[in-house]
């Protein structure tokens, strides 16, 4: 059921169906955890006053508590009946805040050999969380300890909880490409979007009193340039394109080979960022004996993130890898390998920003 409000928006469960939908696929088997994506985004978009604590693109070590800390337990999104799940506004500390360093003292105070760089948060305290505080800790016990990296941005959802929560009608989904944007002239900084987003990818700018988030680099995309996080990624794991482009890698990975899965689909927002789940070496016992029936990263853990299809996807990936190793053709492996950069990874966005 839907009702038209006087703000002119369809609310309460009606899907925002744009003409086309831009999407990304992250191949987690390629992520190096180098944070080049986070830094390229930060340099491009979040350098203004009030944005110092913002990381629209982050990379979390999994298993881990993530950014903001314990975001997976905060609620938001939709329950199985399609009703909104109440949630909370993540705090600056939970996001990791912005740290200030005593650079003046170390670099210009003549104490460079005795004083070391030390961060403090906005409250002047020692930080106890950061955008990837539990980096490389991971999970499991020796000799089967394990981790992998999970890059996260705004998912530009088809059923965006942020959009539907906003009392101002300040959030919209673009018809031409499905990019979800916040109109900062209409935003009054009420932060219901921060609550309702189950992925917690929205930040509050306390200087401008508005909320801000990943914009899918729409000014670049409009000029045929890939988003900064994708173009700068040295691991070349971030595929970008339209879901309906049957010749593009996104359609192939999501719909044709069905190896790219959304993160926490059960949150009900229909995310448009997809992940190729990570393969892992087999488990070993204390004597180094390999047990090929057990993967190092427990499949149940991956199912908790990417849903029940993980097992099938990992089997397909293994089988295709096998084929490739034997010299047989595999279109799936060729798609994931990306022989030609940039045309194989974001065919509609190959324009070099340096040439604009």
């Amino acid at each position, binding site marked *: 059921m839907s009702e038209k409000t*006087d*703000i002119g928006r369809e609310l*309460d469960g009606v899907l925002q169906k744009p003409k086309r939908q831009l999407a990304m696929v992250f191949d987690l088997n390629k992520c190096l955890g180098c944070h080049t994506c986070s830094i390229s985004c930060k340099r491009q978009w979040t350098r203004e006053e009030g944005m110092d604590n913002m990381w629209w693109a982050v990379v979390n070590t999994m298993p881990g508590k993530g950014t903001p800390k314990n975001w997976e337990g905060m609620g938001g999104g939709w329950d199985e009946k399609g009703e909104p799940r109440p949630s909370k506004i993540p705090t*600056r500390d939970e996001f990791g805040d912005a740290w200030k360093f005593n650079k003046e003292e170390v670099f210009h105070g003549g104490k460079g050999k005795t004083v070391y760089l030390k961060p403090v948060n906005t409250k002047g305290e020692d930080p106890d969380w950061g955008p990837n505080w539990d980096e490389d800790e991971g999970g499991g016990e020796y000799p089967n300890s394990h981790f992998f990296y999970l890059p996260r941005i705004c998912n530009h959802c088809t059923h965006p909880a942020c959009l*539907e929560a*906003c*009392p*101002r*009608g300040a959030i919209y989904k673009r018809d031409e490409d499905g990019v979800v944007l916040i109109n900062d002239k209409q935003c009054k900084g009420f932060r219901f979007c921060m609550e309702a987003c189950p992925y917690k990818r929205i930040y509050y700018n306390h200087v401008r009193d508005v909320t801000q988030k990943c914009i899918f680099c729409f000014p670049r995309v409009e000029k045929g340039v890939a988003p900064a996080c994708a173009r700068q990624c040295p691991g070349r794991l971030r595929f970008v394109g339209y879901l309906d482009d049957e010749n593009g890698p996104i359609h192939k990975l999501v719909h044709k080979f069905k190896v790219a899965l959304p993160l926490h689909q059960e949150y009900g927002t229909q995310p448009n960022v997809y992940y190729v789940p990570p393969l892992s070496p087999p488990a070993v016992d204390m004597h180094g004996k390999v047990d090929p029936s057990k993967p190092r990263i427990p499949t149940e853990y991956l199912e908790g993130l990417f849903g029940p299809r993980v097992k099938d996807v990992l089997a397909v990936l293994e089988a295709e890898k096998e084929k490739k190793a034997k010299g047989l053709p595999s279109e799936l492996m060729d798609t994931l390998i990306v022989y030609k950069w940039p045309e194989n990874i974001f065919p509609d966005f190959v324009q070099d920003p340096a040439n604009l």
Partner: protein
Amino acid sequence: MLVKRMDVGGDALGDPAASVWGTAKGETVALMQAPAAMQPTKYITTKWQDKPYGQTKSLTVKALRNADEIAFRLEWQDPTKNEQRIENTDFPDAAAMLFPLSEDAPLFMGMEGAPVNLWYWRADHPSRARSDMATGIGTSRVMDDTSITAKAVHANGRWTVVMRRALRVEKEAASAIQIVPGQTLRTTFAVWEGSNLERAGIKAFSPAWLELQIEA
């Protein structure tokens, strides 16, 4: 309520502690929780329907005018002073007055074709109030050229806020209430409790118009 003419300077009118306010007869306005069912989005309704909010029971209003200006002095109980906006969960205390810009504008934020003008004061900007216009729930827009000054005091568990403006305004003429001596106006009120994360439609409001007779 009569808005008496007192020929004192604007600075006296604008000061909540000025003795001139002793001469104004106050009115106590009952407030109630803005209904959860009337919130503009289902998320907000679902989140707040079983939670207490809008618990400020009343406010006291006084108003005075001089030759050029009008001032409203609002006073309400609030044991916690919330004036900052640094942490993501900081919501400053706030109060607003609503004036209909057409005869049939509903007191629930007006409607299409029947706008209302809002004077909105918030504790993080204690010395000015914003002038907004709205044509329905969830539609308020900040008008660029604000001309409402404010002065606020928090003492003994109470906020006292004076909002002061020229009777007639030129630049915002289409979006702001024009106040003509001799005329009778209507207004209504809202209060937000910052410590309870109140903002937008999560507030206490006055469900009835208060008539203001502007002394000629």
